[in-house]
């Protein structure tokens, strides 16, 4: 999988990643003498020496720059930094100790232990042995209800889980085209009965060695609310959006919905 980002400090590195979706305060969050992460988070206790450190962004005191320098001073240098949000402390720190730094990468797709190529000259991150698949998820809306669908036993992934109308984006179509095609194929509703309410910012779902880049859509359904489902689904329901939390769904479905619907 290749993810494009913004190159901040040029350079190249490859190695194992230590990844967290937390914002890191370097002043009290990292011990520069050991490179150990002290901040309470899912990678607390890990050492970043010899690793590529991926985190959401920086936070806290600007004096944190000295802790990043400390990693070099004590010979505990990480190989590079990857963040989602660009942060002044991290920018200064990476430049100062001359390690590659790339930002605007959705760090939630990375897992501690992934092997990563960080090319901050060309501006990309390659995650080895992980594939990226683009998919769409559509929600149909009628009044204040939305339709959700239970995936049948015949589909290859997430059997029995509740979902929106989803499917892969083919290489020659836009996400919106893919969404319309999937609705037509799976529930037999043509585009004349749909009007787009909102298309949301895509989100990433990591599942094993696969990363799903999910494009969320919310459509107003015109006409009758009877839906004909095909083999891919075993049942469907009209529910209030908030009730989705109570269903056993495919990963991050509620988050996907929240990108196109606000309470």
């Amino acid at each position: 999988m290749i993810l494009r980002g913004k190159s901040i400090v040029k350079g190249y590195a490859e190695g194992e990643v230590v990844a967290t979706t937390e914002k890191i305060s370097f002043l009290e969050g990292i011990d520069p003498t050991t490179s150990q992460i002290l901040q309470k988070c899912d990678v607390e206790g890990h050492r970043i020496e010899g690793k590529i450190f991926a985190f959401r962004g920086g936070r806290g005191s600007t004096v944190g720059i000295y802790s990043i320098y400390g990693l070099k001073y004590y010979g505990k240098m990480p190989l590079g930094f990857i963040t989602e949000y660009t942060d002044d402390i991290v920018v200064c720190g990476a430049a100062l100790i001359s390690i590659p730094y790339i930002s605007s990468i959705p760090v939630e797709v990375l897992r501690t232990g992934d092997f990563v190529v960080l090319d901050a000259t060309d501006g990309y991150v390659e995650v080895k042995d992980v594939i990226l698949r683009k998919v769409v998820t559509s929600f149909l809306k009628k009044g204040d209800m939305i339709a959700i669908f239970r995936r049948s036993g015949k589909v290859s992934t997430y059997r029995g889980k509740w979902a929106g109308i989803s499917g892969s984006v083919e290489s020659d179509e836009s996400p919106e085209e893919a969404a319309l095609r999937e609705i037509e194929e799976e529930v037999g509703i043509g585009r004349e009965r749909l009007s787009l309410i909102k298309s949301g910012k895509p989100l990433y779902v990591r599942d094993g060695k696969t990363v799903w880049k999910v494009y969320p859509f919310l459509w107003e359904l015109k006409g009758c609310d009877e839906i004909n489902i095909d083999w891919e689904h075993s049942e469907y329901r009209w529910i209030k959006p908030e009730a989705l939390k109570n269903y056993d769904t495919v990963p991050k479905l509620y988050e996907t919905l929240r990108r196109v619907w606000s309470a």
Partner: protein
Amino acid sequence: MKMYLSREMERMLDGEYGVGKQMAMKVLVALGDSYNAEKMVRIKSAHISGASYDTVGEHGLHLIKEMSSDCEVVVKTTLNPIGFDRDFVEEIDEDFYAKQMELLQIFQKMGVELTCTCTPYYHHNLPKFGEIVAWAESSAIIYINSLVGARTNRESGFSSLCSAITGYTPYHSLLIEENRAPNFVVKVKEKLNPGMLGLYIGKEFQGIPYIVFDYIPDEDYLKLMGAAMGASGNISMFHAEDITPEHNKYDTKGLERVEVEKKDLEDLTGNKDFEAVVFGCPHLSEREIADIVKILGNREVVKPIYLYTSRGVMARMRREVEFLRRKGVRVLADTCMVVSPLLRGKYRKIATNSGKAYHYLRSKKFGGFEVYLGNTEELLYDSTR
């Protein structure tokens, strides 16, 4: 798009002017590129934070030493408070004293003025209207952007040091005229405690406020308000209608408007049961000290009172300072209640008139005190008779 660099800057980057300038330029280029800045611009002055050994640590000391080995600052550069008052060091741990003084000497060797104050604009370093500077210290940043009309981004202690060494800063954000326009309007309907007002605005909003007061706040009021805004949020500039120098440059039509009144600030005060009272965050001005002297008058001090100011202000207020010290008030320079460990362990409950001090003293890192935020006069009456 990469930032344009002059030949001089390229040479700095290549190390032709030595290690210090090379490291500094590398950091500034990375910062500029991250903001998509088109170029670097010259600065007139710098102000550096992170001056306490306690926060920079041994490795920070080493870095500053390495950078200073072959270069000096090329513009007027002042320094933030440190961990103690250099005139009162009896209680200071010997090792800490030695390390702090070593750090100060390194700064001095680079040509940094050892002002040790967060209000360099009173006597040591006052930029002119429109001047571009590279300042750290959030309360000073907001003060000179808003009240003076000088232009600085929200620099860190380290990026301001890099700018002081090279003489340049990347051109972006608040250095550019159109980015200094207000983003929302705040109407203040009744006279409010400046610290509470600042904490509230900083916490609730982002961007640059255009503040309309129903009364006329003085510079000290605006200083306290601004410092609190910079502490609870990351606001780096405000406009005050008919008061601040750039207030009439921009159109406020169509901006979001909010009103603030006393009841919005109710949970920003704390328990009024304190053991000591502290003033001077940011460092006290001459007028603030004069006001305190006036309010105290013949009253007798019954609870410890601490005042923090700069050496420059202290030198001009010698008689007042003597008067206060005779009364038992502790008047200190170079340091403050937040960066010095002086109060920790000694008291648990503290009162202050500063929203910024209220914000930091409550945090674990700076002592985890119980703090009451009040008005100057009220606090002075409550600690005297």
